[in-house]
């Protein structure tokens, strides 16, 4: 396999009826890279995210994850490659305890014994061990986000896709999330879809800016955010 990155997207496009949500997007993610996808509302960030996770089938283009063709694959098949996925709305099992949520994630690739061990470790890592026995449905929004991080983490993924991980978090929780993501980045390549600029500055070095379904620019976060075109896009001045 050529060393052409963990994620390799070529000419990805999505059309709903006559509307183009995404147009010829080329995107490459290198090993252990941490990349933020940013852009104003409706830029196509979430659409691209859904294509990567198999929740949406692109109408054209090619997506490869570690060289494996992923167009038309089911989410469980993509996740089965060792990809951790966190959706925008906290997607957790509300009726189960924190421990059970993470256990189910850990058990997929492990025996029960090592799953139990992974659960304890994960609970420590995300700092939620004190509410291990609580029902997730009873937790505050920020804690539930953390639980979802835990389920992603417990699968020991080598690629992690996060959709708006900072949404609805308090400043403290966001800081914690940054720490968790940084730590995850030691073992995995990560794509973060986000529009909270403050959060992105804390987190990333490379960002990709999407605008109107196309890639506008790509580069170091400070450079990109100083770019007048990007600023205009965010403030709505451009075109």
């Amino acid at each position, binding site marked *: 396999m050529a060393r052409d990155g963990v994620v390799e997207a070529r000419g990805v496009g999505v059309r709903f009826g006559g509307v183009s949500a995404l147009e010829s997007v080329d995107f490459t993610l290198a090993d252990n890279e941490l990349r933020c996808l940013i852009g104003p509302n409706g830029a196509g960030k979430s659409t691209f995210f859904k294509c990567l996770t198999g929740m949406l089938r692109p109408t054209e283009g090619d997506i490869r994850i570690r060289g494996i063709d992923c167009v038309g694959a089911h989410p469980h098949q993509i996740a089965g490659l060792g990809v951790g996925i966190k*959706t925008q709305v906290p997607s957790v099992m509300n009726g189960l305890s924190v421990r059970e949520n993470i256990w189910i994630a850990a058990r997929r690739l492990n025996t029960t014994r090592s799953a139990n061990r992974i659960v304890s470790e994960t609970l420590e890592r995300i700092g939620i061990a004190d509410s291990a026995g609580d029902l997730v449905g009873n937790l505050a929004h920020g804690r539930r986000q953390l639980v979802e991080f835990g389920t992603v983490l417990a*699968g020991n993924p080598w690629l992690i896709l996060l959709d708006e991980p900072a949404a609805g978090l308090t400043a403290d929780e966001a800081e914690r999330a940054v720490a968790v993501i940084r730590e995850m980045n030691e073992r995995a390549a990560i794509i973060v879809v986000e529009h909270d600029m403050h959060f992105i500055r804390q987190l990333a070095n490379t960002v990709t800016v999407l605008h109107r379904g196309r890639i506008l620019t790509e580069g170091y976060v400070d450079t990109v955010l100083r770019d007048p075109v990007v600023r205009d896009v965010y403030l709505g001045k451009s075109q």
Partner: protein
Amino acid sequence: MTSRQLVLSVVIAAIVMFVLPVFFDVLNLTTYAAYALLALSLGFVWGYGGILCFGQTAFYGLGAYVYAMTAINLGEAWGGFFLAILIPAIFAAILGAMMFYGRLSDVYLAVVTLVVTLLLFRFMNTTAGPEYVIGEARMGGYNGIPGFPTLHTPGNPDANIYDEELYYFTFIILFVCYLLTRWLLGSPFGRVLVGLRENEQRIELLGYDVRARKTAAFAFGGGLAGLAGCLYANAAEIVTPELFSLGLAAEAIIWVIVGGTGTLIGPMIGAAVLGHLKFVLGLQSIKQVFGKENPLEATLVFGMILVLFVLFLPRGVVPSIQGWFGRSLVGRFKSGSGMRRRTRSERARNGA
């Protein structure tokens, strides 16, 4: 389940099994045990798998018919006994695969299962003619199939298991199925299944194949229901298309709702209690009041029970009792580690 819990449940089941015949007729009890097994299967599929099957009785009736026809053809019972589990399970697997791989949502799933039941009901009613025959077994249309060989000591078709023996046999099968289902729920498969009920997308994003798992759970439920049908057939000694009727499909749902979804014991108790209620209502005819034949008054009562439970106690009786009772126990269990020690209230809330 820990070995202590296992011993405890065996003791309780044994006591219940020996005490019940003191108060109730054993033939009735045998029927209730078959009902309870049907309720267990629906309670598993619906309460834990989150699959709302309106037509669980399709597999029940199928089990009964498969048993009756195989028994007639073989002249002995045990081949039919196992086929009565296997064929409904396979049928459920095919139907389930069709529904889950087609991504049918809740309502549509309910429709399809109900339609399948109705389909079997209509079909079985039309099979009165002599051309509807499998081997030596005529399907009998609305008259059903009477006079098939009933269960007997293996290897000796003349040593029938009947009356009290049949009751004990049915009860023990019910108990074994209950243990088997609990074991399954405690296994990784069962836990993922419960997670799936809670959040299908999350489970899928964790890399589990949701459709295959739901299909497997549905097939397991279908097998249990088929076995229940076989046991019922042995108690009733006749199978009729009524097994596929809308009324019985509704009753199975009512047992589970009243007993409580999200528990296994609840639906079983619901089935037994309401089964007995139906029997009692059948005796207490109120035709003196209205001066007419009224075989349907149980329907009136059952309908009202269903409405009232959906409105006022949608969790069912057993989870509600566990909820009230369990609150005081939360502290005791909370510090425990490991998946097994889920508190009672947790389980009860899951059922909501």
